[in-house]
């Protein structure tokens, strides 16, 4: 192993606790903010706005979804796959998208289906966090730009639906094996790293601005 690899902690850091998704309620409620884990099992993923809107329309019309989301792990994960000669698809690479743009839809999805885990990057708002607390669901932060690590943990495309949509928008059920690293960023008790950090940053802003003013004054600007 080269010094660079060793410095990057290639092995030690990636040796993480593993959980199976869909999570049991007990597993979900036992996770704490900042826990870093890997996942095995199955998740349903998409990054499509039209997909979320279609799910909402199905709910409004009391129609079933192409596959059941009850208790599911539902992730904002983009998947590029390739069709196989057997008629299935193999995953090529994956990466998360910013979850916040789905804030308007997630509270309904979380409550309606009792989701056990959500994931993406950038977080979800407190409306979502409250819904997650009610049902016992967590939000995992996936690292944007870490596709080489995350892709290794997606071992199969189990099925896709709404194939009229572009690939990354389709509702896709993936099989996970050691998928990660993932950080618990909203727990099942209504606590959110994003909320805490945004509040802290806002509270610190007057002090930060005062320091900028002082430094500018000192520089004679």
């Amino acid at each position: 192993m080269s010094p660079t690899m060793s410095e990057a902690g290639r092995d030690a850091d990636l040796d993480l606790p593993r959980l199976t998704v869909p999570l049991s309620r007990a597993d979900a409620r036992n996770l704490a903010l900042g826990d870093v884990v890997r996942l095995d099992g199955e998740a349903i993923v998409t990054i499509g706005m039209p997909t979320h809107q279609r799910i909402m329309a199905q709910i409004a019309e009391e129609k079933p979804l192409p596959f059941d989301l009850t208790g599911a792990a539902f992730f904002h994960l983009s998947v590029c796959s390739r069709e196989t000669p057997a008629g299935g698809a193999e995953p090529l690479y994956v990466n998360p998208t910013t979850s916040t743009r789905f804030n308007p839809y997630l509270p309904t999805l979380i409550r309606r289906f009792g989701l056990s885990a959500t994931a993406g990057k950038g977080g979800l708002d407190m409306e979502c966090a409250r819904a997650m607390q009610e049902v016992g669901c967590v939000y995992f932060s996936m690292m944007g730009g870490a596709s080489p690590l995350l892709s290794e943990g997606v071992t199969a495309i189990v099925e896709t639906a709404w194939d009229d949509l572009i690939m990354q928008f389709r509702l896709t059920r993936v099989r996970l094996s050691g998928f990660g690293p993932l950080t618990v960023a909203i727990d099942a008790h209504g606590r959110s790293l994003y909320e805490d950090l945004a509040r802290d940053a806002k509270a610190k802003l007057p002090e930060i601005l005062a320091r900028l003013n002082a430094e500018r004054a000192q520089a004679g600007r």
Partner: protein
Amino acid sequence: MAITYDAVRTATADLYAWSLRTVPDDAVAALRASLDTETVESARKVLRFMLTASERARTDDKYLCTDAGVPSYDVRIGTAARIDGDIKQAIVDGFAQLCATAEPPILKFVTNPLTNQRSFAGKDMPLVTWDVVSGADYVEMICSPKALGTGRWASIETFVSPSLETIERHVMDCVLKAGSQPCPPVVVGIGIGGTFDIAAKLASKATLRPFGTPNPEPILAEMERRLLVAINSTGFGPMGTGGDTTALGVHIDYASGHGYTPVAVCFNCWINRRTRARLYNSGVIERCE
């Protein structure tokens, strides 16, 4: 010899393909250096994951992100460059070539803003800004495919004769608004003055400047240092899950203008996709980043 249609078409495709797999060397160095100052253990871990991901992209020839971005090129034409062929069309064709041949394939991200339909082609694709370099015997091309994660946080606001304090406070407001979302640690690009379009271009180009190259204007060099410390005091940290490392750099540029002063602020995520090549009259193609 001359700079040909074929050379520009090939460079267009190659630069894009490289950018999808490469965290620039200076960005890797900045990430590594941030481990010396990051005090939050979980953030140090995220930074180490980032270094591992960038290393694996390089050694295992992997894409860093699924979002292949909107194709964006800066082309700087030397006044002594000899051009043979329609290099404007070469860039259009080079991007089409990339879409047809990229391995693994890239996803559709070119979006019609009127219908939100996505494909591999569209009006004015790729997005190209053209500039002229006095005396140079080359064409320089920079490819910086812009993804949604940071692209959506760019903004511009026009002030009247703002003080430096007003400008810096505005930048901090933009940073707080983006918060945990733009895949930090980011580079913050800031363009001050000129006109509406010029300020935006200055900010966007400032993000392409390598880390460790402060603006030669002392007022801006000081502001860059000051704002970097300020932004890293906010606590958003790597991936926005907490820490001292929210930005790796603040790059500012300015142009003289009128008393109305546009201030453009934009971001680039930690993978900082940008590749650069120079195509010389001699036929030599030099990959610079």
